[in-house]
């Protein structure tokens, strides 16, 4: 039994932590959020130079050969800084699909660009009618000569505005909610018939509505087997959930620690707020729930790193449920215990809270995963 990080992972952790320390105080972040693109090209280059963008790719492709545990190490630190660069979209979501389903030719075309940062991936999986169900897909891909023609609409696609390649789930056979009959396609930015309508999300990140109108792709755009995209999509979603949970745990740590610090500084009734027992107990609860999340994060991540098993799947559902619920509990109480100050954009806690709210909604909220877990 050992929950220690390896030396290599510790180096990675330190390097991300240092990057966050140097580049992500609230003021710098707020400036980046206000830009059109919503993140920094320079930071993105730095991430490439430091090798983070190669993390999940095999060494044969010039990657680091990392697994979910390595991603966890990075995402937790990125969470502590509320980092804006599209690491999650490209290196978690996109790479999770490529790793599992892309053939050698596709990998050797795509991986180098992702690793050096010149390409950015994202995954267009959500549709409005689907709510959180990955298998509810009405976007279609129709055979056309030796290629396909895609039609439909994808919602809330992470960082689609800057992505060079979108991986799109589309129906190639079956009914609207059949798991069978979903296929994954690579669509290049700027393709004829592709429109990307971008907007900020409440956490300062960027998402897009993506419309596909007779978008033509070649046979080589199909990732994995025809009609069998769902298991890949589902496994990528599990990777995504693990990564988001790690990010969330990073956010929660900042929130509970900031609250403990603030209540010791702020005085009312001639006492530091931290003297009041009701607040002490509340902070202890925040801390307890945070530690529980970390435990479940380790459990789910370690199980998933063994393979896409049913056990890992259950742990992922459990984790996403707990992270959603706890994130909001900790966020709400951090705000409450800061009083009026907690309501302002001037303190960082509100920004972490907003990120946790969005994380709950991404890839299924707390209720959704509890039901999946219980099923």
């Amino acid at each position: 039994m050992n929950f220690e990080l390896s030396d290599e992972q510790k180096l990675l952790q330190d390097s991300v932590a240092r990057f966050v320390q140097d580049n992500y105080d609230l003021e710098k972040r707020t400036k980046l959020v206000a830009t059109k693109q919503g993140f920094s090209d320079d930071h993105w280059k730095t991430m490439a130079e430091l090798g983070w963008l190669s993390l999940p790719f095999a060494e044969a492709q010039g990657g680091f050969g990392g697994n979910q545990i390595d991603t966890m190490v990075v995402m937790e630190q990125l969470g502590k800084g509320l980092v804006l660069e599209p690491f999650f979209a490209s290196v978690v979501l996109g790479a999770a699909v490529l790793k599992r389903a892309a053939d050698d030719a596709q990998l050797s075309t795509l991986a180098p660009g992702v690793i050096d940062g010149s390409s950015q991936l994202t995954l267009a999986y959500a549709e409005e009618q689907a709510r959180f169900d990955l298998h509810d897909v009405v976007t279609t891909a129709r055979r056309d000569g030796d290629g396909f023609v895609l039609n439909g609409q994808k919602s809330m696609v992470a960082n689609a505005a800057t992505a060079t390649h979108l991986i799109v789930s589309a129906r190639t056979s079956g009914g609207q909610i059949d798991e069978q009959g979903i296929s994954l396609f690579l669509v290049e930015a700027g393709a004829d018939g592709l429109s990307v309508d971008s907007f900020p999300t409440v956490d300062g990140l960027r998402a897009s509505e993506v419309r596909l109108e007779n978008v033509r792709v070649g046979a080589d755009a199909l990732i994995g087997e025809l009609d069998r995209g769902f298991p890949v999509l589902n496994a990528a979603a599990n990777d995504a959930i693990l990564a988001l949970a790690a990010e969330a745990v990073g956010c929660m740590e900042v929130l509970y620690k900031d609250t403990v610090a603030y209540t010791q500084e702020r005085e009312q009734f001639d006492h530091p707020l931290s003297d009041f027992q009701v607040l002490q107990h509340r902070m202890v609860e925040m801390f307890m729930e945070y530690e529980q999340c970390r435990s479940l994060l380790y459990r789910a991540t370690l199980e998933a790193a063994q393979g896409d098993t049913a056990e890992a799947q259950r742990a992922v559902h459990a984790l996403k449920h707990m992270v959603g619920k706890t994130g909001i509990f900790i966020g709400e109480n951090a705000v409450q215990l800061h009083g009026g100050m907690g309501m302002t954009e001037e303190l960082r806690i509100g920004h972490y809270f907003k990120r946790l709210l969005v994380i709950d909604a991404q890839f299924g909220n707390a209720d959704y995963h509890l039901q999946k877990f219980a099923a």
Partner: protein
Amino acid sequence: MDIELSAEDLAFRDEVRGFFRDNAYKPGADYNQWRLDWFAKAREKGGWDVPKWPTEFGGPGWTPTQHYIWEQETAVANLPWDLPFGIGMLAPVLMAYGNAEQQERFLPDIRARKVNWCQGYSEPGAGSDLASLKTKAVLSDDGSHYTVNGTKIWTTMAHIADWIFCLTRTDDSGKKQEGITFLLFPMKQEGIEVKPIITLGGAHSVNTVFITDVKVPVENRIGEEGKGWTYAKGLLQHERTGLAGISRSIIALEKLKEQARTVKRGNATLLDDPGFRAKVAELEVDLMAAEYTELRSLASASAGAAPGPESSILKLKGTEIQQRIQKLTVEAGGIYSAAWGGKPVGPSFARGGMAGYLASRAYTIYGGASEVQKDVIAKNVLGIKSSK
């Protein structure tokens, strides 16, 4: 015990509905003109513009049932916007502690909605512990005016307010509740600087107000010097009873159900989803009780009795319920609740859901933070004496 609406009550309800219908805003009309006209017409009805004011100041003298009916109807009708500060907070203080000259000077414009007021209580160092406030007011040697210096924070609508009612310190030699003086002064004058504070929902409603060498004539002091705390405490009572919003929550929950019904889940809707449905049901149960808590409180208040212990829980319960409804609205929107600004995406109700939820977090902070409210109930209602 009896809660059947009498024939007169039903007639009153119809009259209220008719009034709202006849005076509804017509698209394209000048909003401000409509607003002022609306209140003028409500006044002609016999004090409907100031339902909570006592009859000697022009209030309608309604029974508790009529107040309840009004609450219910206003929760669904589209009324002109109104701020609570003048009508609901300052006016009762003026009536109870202001002199005749002050009442004549200020009440008519408050009533006509011609002057907007803001509440200058909280300070950076004085939030829950309001009595520790430090904004200094020094009386001139000739006794004609005070010179005020200090900083107020979280002042809602200070940026549009014409006047402020402000707690100031005139004496710091004794207990901190003593030596507080209640002053009124205009906001649009030299020496007052208003700096916006943007809150989590992205809105600008609160401000920091810097007050530098502002001269306030003694005629603008309410009651006696040093007695401001007593006056303000009465006022806080008025603020809190207005914050429960039970009728509005009942309507909001119905709206939420309608919205959830538009979110398809397979052959059913989100409202059929067991997790979501259970949360809606729990809210409904709580609201059923809270509605009666409010009625009990209304009934005892109108019988002239001191508010019963049940009144003390209304703000806590009411605000917590409002927050839960907001939270469920965000959940109903799913991932679309995350969209911010820009174009509408996903179900139409998802837009604004997140902003509403974030803003609702303040409900358990202002008007007495919940933790402190519970302290007050423990002491005043349960009679628990702290040995500290």
